[in-house]
């Protein structure tokens, strides 16, 4: 599903590359934790998958396609098949829960009838039954992140990228968020989650890829957060 083929990414303003010679293969339906300290290249890794950045060397393949061969005007179609969740939720404060989720479908031109059928289903899936017309500022952090996950998943992407989704949420609530991500993973969606949260990684026992200074220092199935070698 996602292949990093000897990928190096350097930014003009920094001497040290953000990623160096990274080789990672993620299969369809996998759940992968991307761990490592701040600045180790986790976000760059995710941005490369979205073609927000392009590698300085090497190739990134997503769903069998070499991203360097996808023309710019086709990038939106790539992103429609990838959902994204962030630490800061990125909800629209002037839209309610339903509208926030529906927005993702409206802007890719889905018909209204389809939206009214699909959005409530996804809101239920993330555990926000009956909260469709709440505004984001009336929700707790955990609930807001559920809305963000619903928005990322509503178009049924092949891949869900989550960048520190529990970073702003207390540990008890985080478990709930992880259950939602797990539920999404069980529908066959590949999930890549960058995180600092050792407790979560240890509890879930999924595949772990650890980055340090832009290099992969560990790639372990059913791994834990750290010091487990």
């Amino acid at each position: 599903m996602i292949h990093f083929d000897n990928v190096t990414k350097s930014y003009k303003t920094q001497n040290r590359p953000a990623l160096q010679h990274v080789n990672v293969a993620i299969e369809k339906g996998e759940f992968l934790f991307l761990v490592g300290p701040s600045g180790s290249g986790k976000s760059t890794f995710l941005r490369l998958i979205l073609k927000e950045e392009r590698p300085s060397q090497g190739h990134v393949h997503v769903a069998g396609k070499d991203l360097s061969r996808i023309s710019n005007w086709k990038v939106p179609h790539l992103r429609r098949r990838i959902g994204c969740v962030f630490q800061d939720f990125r909800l629209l404060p002037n839209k309610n829960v339903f509208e926030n989720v529906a927005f993702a479908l409206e802007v890719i031109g889905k018909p209204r009838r389809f939206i009214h059928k699909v959005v409530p289903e996804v809101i239920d899936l993330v555990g926000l039954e009956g909260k469709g017309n709440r505004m984001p500022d009336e929700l707790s952090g955990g609930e807001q992140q559920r809305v963000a996950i619903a928005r990322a998943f509503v178009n049924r992407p092949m891949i869900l990228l989550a960048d520190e989704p529990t970073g702003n949420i207390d540990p008890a609530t985080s478990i709930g968020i992880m259950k939602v991500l797990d539920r999404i993973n069980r529908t066959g969606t590949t999930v890549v989650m960058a995180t600092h949260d050792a407790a979560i990684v240890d509890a879930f026992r999924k595949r772990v890829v650890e980055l340090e200074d832009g290099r992969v220092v560990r790639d372990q199935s059913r791994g834990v957060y750290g010091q487990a070698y």
Partner: protein
Amino acid sequence: MRVQFVLQEIWIGLRRNLTMTVSLIITVAIAMALVGTGLLIRGQVNASKSYWYDKIEVSVFLCAKSSSNPSCNKQEATQADKDALKKQLGGMSQVAAVTYETKDQAYARFKDRFSSSPAFVNSVRSGDIPDSFRIRLKDPQQYKPVVQALLGQKGVDQVINEQEILKKFFNILNGLQNAAWIVAVFQLAAAVLLVGNTVRLSAFNRRRETGIMRLVGASNTYIQMPFILEGAVAGLIGGLVAAVLLVMSKSLLIDKLAGDLQFASQLGWGTVLAVIVLSVCFGVLLCAIASFLTLRRYLRV
């Protein structure tokens, strides 16, 4: 869905920078009105030129007792002078037709032309206006040799070339047209810059939305369309205001000028309508293109 969504986005965008939008509309309106006025004046000049060039005449006024020209010697032109002149004119290759206008005919024409100001008519008596030869030229531009030949002939008081008078008049109109266009150019430049600023503000205001649109894979056109249409809508409203201004300038400026200066040909409302359509389209296009170019700088897609 799409249409409604886009319209909603445009409305939100325009309302959020209301002051910018209003100033943009005013600027576009003035610019378009000036461009339109320039076009109208040009239309008027062209229409009157073709009308007048058909009728243009060289008038040879003959000596009368009241003539101030010393060569007339306070004497009326004799019949012999007139015959000689007529013969000379008949032999000139540039001349298409010659008519002789008697004093009575001249007075009747004068009364007719100035019938709206009776006091002026009453101050002139029959016989005050000299008799004349009216010469129609084959090519109105070729008046010089004819005028040269006639000046100083016995019995000739004055030679008046109507084209000279018209030229002055057209020069005034051309000057007006150029002035309108010069101001319009500045206004257009201001409008383009304002569109740029409005779009930039708009893009900044909606960076959350556009960011999310990018993430969920909205196409570039879809992301940019509301901004471009925002510019276009402002341009359209400006153009409509300009249309009102143009109708006013037609009825207050051109028609008034036409009344005062006795234009033979009136500009029809058809021409005004064409000018309005042209300037509205121009305004909309200008704003849309300016937004598009600004977007490329401020909205990374």
